[in-house]
């Protein structure tokens, strides 16, 4: 059993091996369990701590964007702000509104947070990573991320608040719509890497897929920022309209869990983007893969932050239009192009794709992307800028008294 588990890539940093060696043969399951718990503990805490640091980073960076300071009181550069936040959240009263569905109301934040942790487990941080060798990794990611639709609806429905309900209904409509282009973009990645495991996606990614299929990259980033409902797709919360959307009624630690999940989402998304499109931990020189990975994820993170700081929000029907009339056909086009190219370029016997094949695909796909973007922006811009010139109305004449 030991051999199998290790071979399957489970033996993370030798933890399982260590416990397995410690225990008699018959207690294999216990070693497995203990190792599993330690792993879960490590994943969850890594994510929670990095989220805490990220909240500080995001608030400081937004402060810089907006020519203000951001949190700077607590600790050096305000670094201890997340701790102060947690203390505040914990000391707040945990209210449940009258008439709320108590069980569902309590369950919703837990479900919301859990999905984030589940997805993060599958991200290969380095070449010796463990769970990412799950052979249906990509399918797992798509499946688990759609659970947070359910969590949002649970929160909105159970709190019996009209604003929350608005947010939840918008959320369900939007998240389900954006699942489709996102899944299709991931499908193109799976085709090109000829694997469904996140680990193999990286090992087969000699050329970063962002270069090979820029269209898929664009679709994925757009759909993912909709999935985590940040500007310009933040209509689930849309502070200026709904107060705070589905979590209007939450307070105390339950609200903290929502906040945690919300700030976790960009980290997870940028990790997924780094894995699927920026060739994960691969890099050059003696720098370890983990560092490369974190660097890539940080770049994506900063880009997402930039979007958030600058863009206004789209209206609900415009968002749905963008999903179904914009991203969906584009993702189909992308999938079709990638599939055709692979069919034509791959080795007819082994089915393998070489680096030069990848570069050829990149050239074709960049051309397609360029044409599509040019056409779309032409059409859009012409429509947008059509406006009559201002003409003074005959109903008023400011100089009339002169006569």
């Amino acid at each position, binding site marked *: 059993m030991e051999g199998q588990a290790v071979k399957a890539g489970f033996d993370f940093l030798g933890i399982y091996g260590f416990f397995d060696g410690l225990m008699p043969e018959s207690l294999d399951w216990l070693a497995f369990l203990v190792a599993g718990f330690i792993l879960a503990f490590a994943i969850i805490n890594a994510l929670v701590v990095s989220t805490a640091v990220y909240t500080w980073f995001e608030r400081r960076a937004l402060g810089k964007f907006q020519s203000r300071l951001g949190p700077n009181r607590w600790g050096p550069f305000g670094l201890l702000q997340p701790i102060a936040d947690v203390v505040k959240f914990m000391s707040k009263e945990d209210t449940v509104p009258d008439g709320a569905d108590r069980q569902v109301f309590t369950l919703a934040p837990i479900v919301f947070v859990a999905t984030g942790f589940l997805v993060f487990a599958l991200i290969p941080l380095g070449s010796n990573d463990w769970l990412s060798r799950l052979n249906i990794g990509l399918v797992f990611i798509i499946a688990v991320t759609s659970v947070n639709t359910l969590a949002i609806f649970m929160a909105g429905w159970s709190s019996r608040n009209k604003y929350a309900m608005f947010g939840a209904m918008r959320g369900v409509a939007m998240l389900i719509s954006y699942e489709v282009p996102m899944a299709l973009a991931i499908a193109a990645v799976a085709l090109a890497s000829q694997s469904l495991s996140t680990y193999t996606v990286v090992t087969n990614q000699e050329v970063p897929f962002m270069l090979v299929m820029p269209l898929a990259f664009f679709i994925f980033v757009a759909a993912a920022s909709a999935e985590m409902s940040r500007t310009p797709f933040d209509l689930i919360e849309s502070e200026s309209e709904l107060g705070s959307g589905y979590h209007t009624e939450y307070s105390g630690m339950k609200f903290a869990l929502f906040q945690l999940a919300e700030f976790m989402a960009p980290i997870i998304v940028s990790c997924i983007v780094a894995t699927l499109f920026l060739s994960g931990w691969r890099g050059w020189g003696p720098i370890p893969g983990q560092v490369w990975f974190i660097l890539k994820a940080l770049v994506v993170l900063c880009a997402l932050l930039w979007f958030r700081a600058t863009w206004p929000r789209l209206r609900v029907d415009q968002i749905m239009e963008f999903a179904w009339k914009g991203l969906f056909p584009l993702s189909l086009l992308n999938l079709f192009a990638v599939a055709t190219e692979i069919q034509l370029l791959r080795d007819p016997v082994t089915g393998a794709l070489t680096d030069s094949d990848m570069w050829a695909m990149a050239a074709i796909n960049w051309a397609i992307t360029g044409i599509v973007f040019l056409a779309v922006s032409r059409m859009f811009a012409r429509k947008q800028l059509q406006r009559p010139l201002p003409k003074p109305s005959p*109903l*008023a*004449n*400011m100089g*009339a*008294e002169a006569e």
Partner: protein
Amino acid sequence: MAKALAGTDVARRINETFSGVALESNKTDVWVAPDDLHRAAKFLHDDKELDCAMLLAITAVDYVERFELVYHLRSMRKNHTVVIKTRLSGREEPAISSVTDIWQGADLQEREVWDLMGIRFEGHPNMKRVLLWEGFPGHPLRRDFVR
């Protein structure tokens, strides 16, 4: 410079069409009877020469023995202003016909006058209090209002 039309001229024009509607006039203002107000307002709005397309403000002034309603009107084509006034007697819910059918802009202003001065406008589609809550005792801008 916008011209404030002389009340006497406006009164003459009104009386040319509806004789006797403009009761008195001076350099700035025209007084009409409360019952004729709607007719006079309609005339001022429709008349090509006076052309009062915009209702600037409706003001109620409490002179204790009477209420005075002041309508500031403006023509934007001719750039002049007209002031017509009307006197209402009686302190128990005086009433006058609404001009909301002529100027939509009277809507909130008439409600405000009702709210603060207690003058009811008949024919107003939604004669409710606007700044104070329903059930507020009295009308606070009246001179005899005491908390």
